[in-house]
């Protein structure tokens, strides 16, 4: 690489870092004060792009029209953030943190469909920035003038935010609330208004980041989740709550990605390495490395323990044998009476139930929330398909070996993950899922890339829908039973002890990290089993099985059912799968419908469906007494 191309790649990287920084800074700010991991932040960024596109169309492609549109789009997205805070989140600040997360997933779904409804499914290519569409010559290379402007905007916003946080009373309130919001309230500050203002600023930054991207990137419906993954990486690498850290991390990652693209394909020792395809991997590798060396990010500090007086999780109730046997008998009888459609739907539900129960195991009793559980589900599915198609193994062998492959990945990923806790852990799991996804997506020759793997059918004796129904019931049922059983073994007790008090658990001689690592491997293997069963039931596998959307689906299932009960995740998986199927058959906008249903449930039953019903039953019983 010559010096000139080095500089060019550096500038490229810095230009793309600016928007990333804006989004991440907003995310960080909101998280700091409200302790909500706002998954909808990427949606706000996406709205920024769409909004800027439409406004420019309306106001004209002049410099004035362009810049008015950018500012207006950012302000409108800020208002959208305020609406989200006031209409939804304000009502559930007292609910468990995971429920707030569920609400933000629902908002992602709703916003995606609003965008689909308003702007359609086609990518919208925005105009070049009027007046800045020329290129500037640097070292003999041409750089778009707009990119240079973007490079300048990053530090300007950083400075503005710094002044806002360090030199105004609002900034002092925000920083104080980040540490102890209850005390801020006791000093007479209205938290609700403070939170609303923080949401406005955070959303405005996301909207600005999006609007500024319109000359560089077409507006499309996939931006929400792809940018949120990037923003998570940046905030975590920089250190949650550190605006300066977010800037540093955005630059680091932006530049690293630009260099990957710039290097292109190289030949080393006879191997051909396509660096341009490794951008995602590089980004997440940086994150994994930083988190292992500096668990709280480059400029982060150990999070101040927010004073949240949440009640400890109640002890788990053991499902009774009669309950289990009645259900088993019913499910065994289904193919005798029901039609093909019901059988297929139930087969799906079995797979997702095991997937959800394995996720529940790790995030509930083991206390490690995973944002990337689809990694194991998808790896299991791909392992099954590839062992069959590329490995030439019989289907039965592939089905048994595939979970072990997923488990092997869990050994590696888990080793890193158990070193962290809380949000950092969750984001690292997301990072590993994204690495897996991008490898699967980009390793065309092995995995079929975006097309996936086809012809993954079970052996003839299992090919009938009824036969496969029983197979799915047997394997997934056994998996669920195993996980539940383990929870009531000494291993399960140790995990729960570690969740409730890591310090005390270690003090009585539990090697917590090793237990958590084992738990990771166990649930990874079983999620892999769910994926493998799923793969053979569908006959094909697409990268969607390993995507963020699949991970969030799992979280929705668990949280919908209720994380505090054992049967909740199963109920959540069933309801979610059935509802999605029902709604998707009736309307193109099934996401919005799902999102609204979830929001309704969140607002009405902050304990999850099963938990909420139990609470209702208890109240009823107490009244009867």
């Amino acid at each position, binding site marked *: 690489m010559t010096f000139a191309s080095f500089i060019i790649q550096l500038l490229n990287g810095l230009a793309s870092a600016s928007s990333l920084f804006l989004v991440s800074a907003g995310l960080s700010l909101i998280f700091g004060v409200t302790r909500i991991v706002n998954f909808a932040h990427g949606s706000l960024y996406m709205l920024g792009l769409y909004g800027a596109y439409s406004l420019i169309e309306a106001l004209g492609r002049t410099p004035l029209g362009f810049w008015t549109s950018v500012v207006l789009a950012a302000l409108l997205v800020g208002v959208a953030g305020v609406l989200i805070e006031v209409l939804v989140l304000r009502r559930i600040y007292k609910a468990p943190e995971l429920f707030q997360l569920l609400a933000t997933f629902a908002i992602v779904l709703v916003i995606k469909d609003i965008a689909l409804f308003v702007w359609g499914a086609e990518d919208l290519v925005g105009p070049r920035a009027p007046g800045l569409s020329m290129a500037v010559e640097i070292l003999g290379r041409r750089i778009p003038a707009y990119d240079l402007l973007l490079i300048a905007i990053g530090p300007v916003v950083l400075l503005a935010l710094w002044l806002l946080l360090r030199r105004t009373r609002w900034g002092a309130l925000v920083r*104080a609330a980040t540490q102890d919001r209850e005390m801020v309230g006791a*000093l*007479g500050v209205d938290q609700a208004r403070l939170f609303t203002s923080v949401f406005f600023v955070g959303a405005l930054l996301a909207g600005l980041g999006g609007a500024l991207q319109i000359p560089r990137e077409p507006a499309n419906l996939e931006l929400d989740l792809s940018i949120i993954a990037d923003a998570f990486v940046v905030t975590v690498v920089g250190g949650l709550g550190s605006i300066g850290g977010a800037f540093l991390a955005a630059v680091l990652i932006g530049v690293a990605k630009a260099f990957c693209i710039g290097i292109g394909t190289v030949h080393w020792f006879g191997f051909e390495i396509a660096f341009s395809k490794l951008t995602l991997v590089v980004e997440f590798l940086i994150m994994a490395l930083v988190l292992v060396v500096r668990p709280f990010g480059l400029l982060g500090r150990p999070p101040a323990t927010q004073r949240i007086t949440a009640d400890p999780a109640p002890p788990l109730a053991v499902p009774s044998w009669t309950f289990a046997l009645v259900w088993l008998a019913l499910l065994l009888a289904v193919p005798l009476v029901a039609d093909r459609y019901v059988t297929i739907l139930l087969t799906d539900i079995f797979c997702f139930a095991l997937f959800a129960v394995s996720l529940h195991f790790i995030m509930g009793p083991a206390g490690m929330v995973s944002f990337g559980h689809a990694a194991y589900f998808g790896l299991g599915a791909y392992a099954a398909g590839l062992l069959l198609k590329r490995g030439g193994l019989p289907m039965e062998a592939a089905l048994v070996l595939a979970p072990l492959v997923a488990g092997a990945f869990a050994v590696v990923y888990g080793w890193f993950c158990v070193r962290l806790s809380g949000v950092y852990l969750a984001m690292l799991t997301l990072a590993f899922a994204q690495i897996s996804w991008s490898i699967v997506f980009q390793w065309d020759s092995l995995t079929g890339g975006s097309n996936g793997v086809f012809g993954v059918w079970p052996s003839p004796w299992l090919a009938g829908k009824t036969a496969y129904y029983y197979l799915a019931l047997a394997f997934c049922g056994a998996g669920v039973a195993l996980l539940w059983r383990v929870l009531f073994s000494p291993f399960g007790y140790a995990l729960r002890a570690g969740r409730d008090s890591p310090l005390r658990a270690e003090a009585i001689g539990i090697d917590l990290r090793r237990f958590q690592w084992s738990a990771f491997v166990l649930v990874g293997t079983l999620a892999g089993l769910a994926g493998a069963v799923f793969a053979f039931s569908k006959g094909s596998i697409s990268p969607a099985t390993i995507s963020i959307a699949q991970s969030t689906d799992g979280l929705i299932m668990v949280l919908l059912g209720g994380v505090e009960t054992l049967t909740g995740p199963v109920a959540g998986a069933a309801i979610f799968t059935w509802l999605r199927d029902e709604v998707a058959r009736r309307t193109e906008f099934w996401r919005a419908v799902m999102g609204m249903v979830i929001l309704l449930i969140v607002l009405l039953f902050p304990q999850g469906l099963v938990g909420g019903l139990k609470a209702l039953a208890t109240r009823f019983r107490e009244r009867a007494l």
Partner: protein
Amino acid sequence: MLNVKDLHAYYGRAHILHGVTLEARAGEVVALLGRNGAGKSTTLKSIMGLVPAASGEVSFGDVRIESLPPHRIARLGLGYVPEERRIFTDLTVMENLTVGRQAPRAGAPSWSEDKLFALFPNLARMRERPGGRMSGGEQQMLTIARTLMGNPRCVLLDEPSEGLAPIIVEQMAHSIRTLKGEGLSVVLCEQNLHFALGVADRAYIIEKGQIRFGGTMAELAADAGLREQYLSV
């Protein structure tokens, strides 16, 4: 000024306050005495709305406050100084004071940074120091100063002498007498009877979430049996 009638409160399912009744009149310093775990802190938190009142009445001036959120109570002019001090460790002394600032209030002494630095001279020397790099005594002064920035009419002080060196305890007693001199009402929780005797006009004794005694400091000082029964360790 502050009237509490038959206040009940819970932590989760644990019934902590079993009908607390007490009163603080304008310009008076009232001590709430009792052993560890008797319900002193919970009483203050419950008055402040930080622990919800399950039943009972709390009036401040002529406003019923038992179902108001903490920030509304604070804005009526009721200040709260927590036992654990709860300084914002990332913020400087000046910024900590900024967070507590409210508009001046009729009928209450009004405070400025300079006036507070006169009351707590130690703080004046460390205006730009982050709260996390201060000693326990300095933090105790800062937390009181921070609450005074809200120009309260009445202050709830949770164990102001706890964990402080004797000389700082002496300063603290002096500061509380100054507050009284300014016309502020004070309700303070204490385990340290000696400290309370030095600053309070009246005292209540709380035990197992109920008030067992209410009277002047002179009455309490005269009754050795009472002290033996409820306060000796």
